[in-house]
């Protein structure tokens, strides 16, 4: 199909959709106004009901914890699928050993880069842990903190070497961490049922509003999400980078 034909086709499609788009835009509520009562209700009642000050965490890890459970299991399934696909070709036995890059010379790191990475790695990881621990009080939480820690570990690769990064970021450890995260979430659901409460019901003591430990089950579930997300992203990074290196036995590309 020529460029001209594509443009004509695109213009025709745009013309056909245009009336519907205009109609929808005309019916939309004014900017910043919404007819939904749910958010306002959460803002009104959550501090008293759950003793937490971050409403998003209260919704994610308590009121709609069922959705988060599904989401996390989906994430674990997606990461597992990717690992099976990528590791399958290399083989399980090689997964905890750094792959070789064949004839490629090792990139020399400049001292400035190494210094910057050594300085910033602990700061970024600490910040990630801070974000995870304050999920119930301030914006952030297990997902955001996990992503921060996972990207922070790349600094080890950037500043030191691939081999060292792979030795510290051990696949087996993060495999187990990933599974632990999923198990913690499922236990958050099943645990309350032992006491006769509903699946995922918040039965733990709520603590004092504004304290670091408050919100009951929100804390536990947040920790589970943090474990699963940190390990999941780190494993993805490991497998993607490993994929670009030839294995010691000469396989791979």
């Amino acid at each position: 199909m020529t460029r001209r034909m594509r443009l004509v086709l695109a213009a025709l499609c745009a013309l056909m959709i245009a009336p519907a788009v205009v109609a929808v835009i005309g019916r939309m509520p004014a900017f910043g106004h919404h007819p939904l009562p749910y958010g306002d209700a959460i803002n009104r009642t959550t501090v008293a009901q759950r003793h937490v000050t971050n409403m998003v965490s209260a919704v994610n890890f308590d009121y709609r914890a069922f959705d988060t459970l599904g989401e996390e299991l989906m994430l674990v399934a997606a990461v597992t699928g990717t690992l099976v696909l990528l590791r399958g070709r290399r083989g399980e036995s090689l997964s905890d050993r750094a792959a070789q890059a064949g004839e490629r010379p090792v990139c020399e790191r400049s001292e400035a880069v190494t210094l910057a990475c050594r300085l910033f790695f602990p700061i970024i990881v600490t910040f990630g842990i801070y974000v995870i621990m304050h999920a119930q009080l301030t914006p952030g939480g297990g997902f955001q903190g996990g992503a921060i820690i996972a990207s922070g570990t790349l600094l080890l690769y950037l500043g030191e070497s691939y081999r060292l990064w792979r030795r510290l970021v051990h696949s087996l450890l993060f495999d187990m961490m990933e599974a632990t995260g999923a198990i913690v979430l499922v236990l958050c659901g099943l645990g309350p049922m032992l006491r006769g409460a509903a699946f995922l019901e918040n039965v733990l003591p709520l603590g004092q509003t504004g304290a670091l430990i408050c919100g009951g089950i929100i804390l536990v579930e947040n920790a589970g999400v943090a474990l699963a997300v940190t390990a999941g992203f780190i494993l993805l990074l490991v497998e993607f980078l490993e994929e670009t290196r030839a294995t010691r036995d000469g396989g791979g590309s």
Partner: protein
Amino acid sequence: MIALLVPMFLLVAATGAGVVLAREPRRQALAIAVNGVALSLLFVALRAPDVAYSEIAVGTALVPLMFLSVLVSLKTDRPKS
């Protein structure tokens, strides 16, 4: 508020166009990062700090880093001709 939002929307549109128009993979990865910063600024202006956090952690840091580190490995892997 609106005075702040209009330039934010324009910034997101401009950086989004930058992602589409960048053809070189390494530039694309950086364009995604810049677009992520613009988006998270917009989310902060719309008072959604949690979403802004996710956007900056995933869209600005993790995904471009993943792309860049893999691209670097691929680039240097190629035999010199």
